[in-house]
């Protein structure tokens, strides 16, 4: 069986969001990934985030490359257009789509092989260019569909299911994103939806290049002792720097926190990020500090999670290109074609 539609049965009292949609309206086909796959939790978090934010499903375009993670866009947002493109090349396809219509939300879903191995170039350049997108890497350190080879995010010294020790240094995509100009950088864990859902919500409302590295254990090929991407390992070594709440402009602020423990960031669209400090004193507006913190903790074997960096100025590729407000794919002939008079004048200059 190659395609499983989800049954449409719905409890009468299922909660609805401001648009009148239920969570089911944000779901997709039934996942064909392995039972217990971290990626399915991420899909569920995306569904929750879009439901919570009252996003119109058809105003989202979801794009991916190739691999287990890249299959997932079929499993959420069934009313959104999706594009399962070429291995490692989702960033360029997403960039083109974003150029064509600046008014949609672009959700790029990729894996560690897709983004850190074959697609490292496109990953880097999409960040540099400031594409307005939410770019999620479902990071399990292995190739799942081809049965367990290491990817470029696998830690040095980590052991494969077959017992092979990885001798290559890992690529830290969050670190790269920070360096290359992403203006919203986070890391999370697929097993911690409480942390992940707000991070996705913040990214979707960000208005610039937003990157989330989600450690997502591969239950089949990378969940054993000796792996640094297993459920047990990540739970034991998770060092969260903050907890995020995303508050929409109209919403009432209800939560109360002890003074000094809360940081408030207003994004360019008016959404408010509330960051609760966890344990460490961490400044998410300090890009260099973020990179230092990541490096220091990584040396101690810790996986730093939370919202690592945010710059809410709201600049993106379209700002740099100075494109018109109206999406380019909606400009009619009259706006595009200079017409025969212009051509005659040009001909005269060419004689």
């Amino acid at each position, binding site marked *: 069986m190659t395609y499983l539609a989800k049954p449409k049965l719905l409890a009468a009292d299922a909660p609805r969001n401001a648009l009148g949609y239920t969570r089911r309206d944000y779901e997709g086909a039934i996942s064909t990934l392995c039972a217990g796959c971290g990626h399915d939790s991420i899909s569920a978090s995306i569904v929750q985030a879009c439901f919570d934010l009252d996003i119109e499903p058809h105003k989202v375009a979801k794009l991916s490359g190739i691999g287990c993670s890249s299959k997932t*866009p079929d499993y959420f947002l069934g009313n959104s257009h999706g594009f399962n493109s070429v291995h490692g090349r989702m960033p360029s396809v997403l960039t083109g789509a974003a150029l064509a219509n600046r008014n949609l939300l672009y959700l790029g879903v990729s894996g560690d092989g897709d983004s850190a191995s074959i697609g490292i170039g496109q990953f880097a350049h999409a960040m540099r260019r400031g594409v307005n997108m939410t770019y999620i890497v479902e990071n399990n350190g292995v190739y799942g569909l081809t049965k367990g080879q290491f990817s470029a995010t696998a830690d040095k010294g980590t052991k494969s299911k077959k017992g092979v020790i990885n001798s290559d240094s890992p690529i830290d995509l969050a670190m790269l994103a920070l360096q290359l100009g992403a203006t919203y950088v986070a890391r999370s864990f697929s097993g911690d939806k409480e942390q992940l859902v707000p991070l996705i919500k913040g990214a979707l409302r960000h208005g610039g290049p937003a990157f989330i590295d989600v450690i997502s254990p591969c239950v089949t090929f990378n969940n054993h002792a000796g792996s640094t991407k297993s459920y047990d390992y990540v739970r034991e070594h998770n060092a969260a720097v903050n907890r995020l709440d995303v508050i929409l402009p109209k919403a009432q602020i209800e939560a109360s926190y002890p003074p000094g423990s809360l940081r408030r960031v207003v994004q360019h669209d008016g959404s408010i990020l509330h960051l609760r400090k966890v344990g460490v004193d961490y400044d998410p507006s300090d890009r260099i500090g973020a990179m230092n913190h990541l490096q220091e903790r990584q040396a101690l074997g810790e996986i730093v999670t939370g919202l690592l960096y945010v710059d809410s100025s709201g600049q993106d590729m379209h700002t740099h290109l100075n494109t018109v407000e109206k999406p380019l794919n909606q400009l009619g002939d009259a706006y595009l074609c200079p017409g025969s008079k212009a051509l005659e004048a040009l001909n005269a200059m060419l004689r």
Partner: protein
Amino acid sequence: MNTPAIQHCNDFVLKFANVNGSGSASANELFARAIIRMGVPVAPRNIFPSNIQGLPTWYEVRVSEAGWLGARGGCDMMVAMNPQTWDRDVAAIDRGGYLFYDSTKPLPPSKFREDITVLGVPLTAMCNAEYDDARQRQLFKNIMYVGALIALLDMEFAAAEQLIVDRYRGKDQLIKANVNALRLGYEYAKKNLPCPIGLTVKRADAVGDRIMIDGNSACGLGAVFGGATVAGWYPITPSTSVIESFSSYCRKFRTDPDNGRARYAIVQAEDELASIGMVIGAGWNGARAFTATSGPGISLMQEFFGLAYFAEIPAVIVDVQRGSPSTGMPTRTQQSDLLSCAYASHGDTRHVLLFPQDAYECFSLTAQAFDLAERLQTPVFVLSDLDIGMNDQLCAPFDWDDSRRYDRGKLMTYEELEAGKDFGRYLDVDGDGIPYRTIPGTHPTRGAYFTRGTTRNPYAKYSEVGSDYVYNMERLRRKFNTAKDLVPAPILKKAAQPTHVGVIHYGSTAPAMAEAGALLAADGIHVDTLRVRGFPFSDEVMQFIAERDAVFVVEQNESAQLRTLLVNEGEIDPKKLVRVLHYDGSPITARFIAGKIADALSDRKVSPIGQPQRKVAS
């Protein structure tokens, strides 16, 4: 001197030998345009190295009142300004020809030839006397030799002067300085040299309303008129100026008058993979998008072409072909990407190709490519080449019908979805093989689908069922057949007399082929010619072959790529298609084509109906 000096009015080839980066290009172009202003057609060609400064470069001007715009071969007059290439430049002059040089430094007689006329002007000495600044000395030396040539060839000084005025309008100092240099050269030649020489230019009325522009600029302009809003690209010779032109025409025509903002987006990608990825992403999302590249870029884009073909996404690719394989001859011309474009990518793929013959068609076919890409929902390749892409050429003036509207193809609208119209993204509803598509964001609950390069059923649901795959491939084949009648029709040119011999050619070969036809006819060999303008081939192409005993296929590549396409797609007996192949990197000439065809006909003893054949000098 025993050899008589060549005597030709309005029909000769003059070649400038320069050093790259010396500022000669604009002076040489001034010379060519001045002749056009006198109503005499010219065909200028740049022969340049992969270099910015220092290596030799040549600029060839063919003057032809008869209007032959292909390369001719040979050289009646050499303007030898490059000491590095002196010996070979002098050797390249036809017997009885002319050598123009800078005579500031005396050269021994051994450096010259007995059978040519030598014309020296002490350009360096004159410039050193006139100018203090080193850069000025260099630049005005070029203008000065143009002035001397005007006197030697009996051209109208006023034509060149007016060009300078037009070029630097509003910059009076520049006009004055350039006209002064032009006059110094002109007066020196008038006073000291035997003006006019045997080669002369006489005012005629053979240019008409034609314009002069290079094909890459025309492609860029065609993309603006064709409605392109997104360009993703990566620099590669000889295609880079397509995007430069698109960018400059966009600034001119697509800047919002109210707020100065851009109605276009141009992104220089990190490589060709990313540039085609952007084009496909934008095309998927409903914008008209294109890239420009050359052979190596086409190779890098292969995987994406397969995706776009199978996922059925409009895209336009302008391929300005150059010598290949590998980096090949990056600054020389070829038509060698036909096969790598026609069957680009893994699996069973076929792509639509367009073959412009000159700058006019670079404009019109590029504009048309966007309609075809959206109508057919597939990549469309415009196969230009370095010869027409980077050389200025005379061509018909651009035209545009203001009543024309962009053909956006089968796009399902919000209203249709709302009314409950059945939407199957890969469903053939009317037999032409082209399905309907929706653009992301069209309707809140209907019409969304998941695009993928893997098999799906007609409703875009993932499927590994063999019959779904077969349905889809058969539909794609029907779609390709539909394209046969949508691509521009071939152009037939009947010989003056009935004949059983035909010639098929395409692209930049056209001007040389037209002249070759005349050369052959003058020798009693009559051939019908068919200029193919698109792939897949229309029935007319196959009919042309079927109706003739022998058909020559003239191409600028080594492996007879169009012939391969004809044999493969039309199931033609290969013996019937005779190769005429030119692939040394220089543009094909009429002499080459006529010689090959005449030789082959005499070898094969295939006699065209009409007069008995004679061999054409080659």
